[in-house]
């Protein structure tokens, strides 16, 4: 799929940014489990945190494919930083799509310019793939709701300024924007994760947090079906492209390494079993990118099919990223098992992608159901 000149220009700009500001530090950030604030500021200064916010609201107003290309390039450099773009964009998009005019006025420009960093808080210890299991409660009290519960594995929860928090109320599931300085919100870091170690993961304890009813996004009862669903759709799209970036990074590392490393008297690139792995990487990255582009075009057209096509793209791209990263470690041998080489980080990060924003198994159920739904139950079997 050929990119138009605007997208080619943006892609080159994103690549330059990642090569200059992300690639050199990514391994160290991973080891330190820390995202330097100046990197986040650079992302904001370039306008990238406003990718999904309309230009008239102070954002970059990228179309879906442009947003995807940004995710691919960031994913090529550092999945932890890409995950910031993911969760921040999920919050910004939600405020833009479903927020009241007051919430849009209060937050959208700040989110678009990266002055306020957003994070998405649905997951709990007992509520992962099935968000309906969340136990965080929202009880009405005068002009407020009182939130009580415990959120876990919240990406960039350590540093975010604004959380999109999901809770159940007697009138159904609700979504709220909750400021970091809200009394009763206790944030603690989570360390020792397998991958995306620099994504500043946190637990949130909501201890009788009072939040104004004006901070409610959508009506009670629509918190999961519409608010979380549309945010997660954005998240899946972002992760899918990020996985293309992981695959591309692995491919580029392997092409370089196989052209320098000699075994049995020949460069690795001359070994046919290495060539097979490289071929599978090339084909996998291209196929995943095409699925992402297709989903992006449908998203820009407002096509309802964009939702299932995004699921398909995410499912394929993250599985492909894991396979490619596994082979990249294999090609690098013992070096690939060392933190001196990025491929071991890519492998760990890729594995995370098969779990977040819908595990592989959830997507398998969803995609298969969608396929069956498209066939009338009464259709005659063709023999």
């Amino acid at each position, binding site marked *: 799929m050929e990119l138009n000149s605007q997208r080619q220009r943006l892609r080159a700009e994103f690549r330059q940014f990642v090569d200059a500001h992300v690639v050199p530090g990514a391994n160290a950030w991973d080891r330190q489990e820390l995202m330097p604030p100046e990197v986040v500021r650079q992302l904001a200064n370039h306008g990238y945190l406003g990718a999904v916010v309309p230009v008239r609201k102070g954002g970059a107003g990228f179309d879906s494919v442009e947003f995807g290309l940004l995710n691919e390039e960031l994913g090529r450099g550092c999945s932890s930083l890409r995950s910031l773009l993911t969760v921040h964009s999920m919050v910004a998009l939600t405020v833009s799509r479903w927020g009241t005019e007051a919430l849009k006025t209060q937050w959208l420009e700040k989110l678009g310019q990266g002055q306020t960093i957003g994070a998405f808080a649905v997951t709990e210890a007992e509520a992962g793939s099935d968000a309906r299991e969340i136990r965080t409660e929202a009880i009405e009290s005068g002009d407020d709701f009182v939130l009580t519960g415990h959120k876990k594995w919240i990406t960039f929860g350590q540093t975010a300024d604004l959380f999109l928090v999901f809770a159940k109320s007697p009138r159904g599931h609700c979504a709220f924007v909750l400021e970091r300085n809200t009394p009763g919100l206790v944030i603690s870091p989570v360390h020792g994760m397998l991958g995306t170690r620099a994504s500043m993961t946190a637990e949130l304890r909501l201890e009788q947090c009072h939040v104004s009813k004006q901070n409610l996004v959508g009506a009670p009862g629509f918190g999961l079906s*519409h608010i979380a669903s549309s945010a997660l759709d954005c998240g899946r799209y972002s992760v899918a492209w990020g996985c293309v970036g992981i695959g591309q990074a692995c491919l580029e590392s392997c092409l370089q390494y196989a052209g320098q490393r000699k075994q049995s008297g020949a460069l690795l690139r001359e070994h046919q079993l290495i060539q097979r792995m490289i071929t599978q990487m090339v084909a996998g990255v291209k196929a995943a990118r095409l699925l992402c582009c297709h989903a992006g075009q449908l998203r820009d057209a407002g096509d*309802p099919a*964009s939702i299932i096509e995004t699921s398909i793209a995410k499912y394929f791209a993250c599985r492909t990223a894991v396979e490619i990263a596994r082979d990249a470690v294999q090609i690098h041998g013992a070096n690939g098992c060392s933190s001196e080489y990025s491929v071991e980080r890519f492998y760990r990060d890729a594995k995370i992608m098969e779990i977040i924003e819908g595990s592989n198994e959830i997507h398998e159920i969803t995609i298969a159901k*969608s396929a*069956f739904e498209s066939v009338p139950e009464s259709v005659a079997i063709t023999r």
Partner: protein
Amino acid sequence: MEQAKEKLRAFLGRHTGGRVIGDDDRIFAAGFVNSMFAMQLVLFLEKSFQIAIGNEDLELKNFQTINAMAELVERKTARS
């Protein structure tokens, strides 16, 4: 209104294996549809009828049945 209902019936049919859904059947309560369907429905309404569904439209009564959605479309298109 009848044209809107016809489009809605066709869309719902595509997502329910061709099941025939009555204009007053409660589509979510009946469990005909999967978890992604709510947003697919929003996108379908927006694209097919050139309307924007926003915060103010998020009321259960607007999406429960084919009749309710046709009325929502009529109200939204009359305003624009």
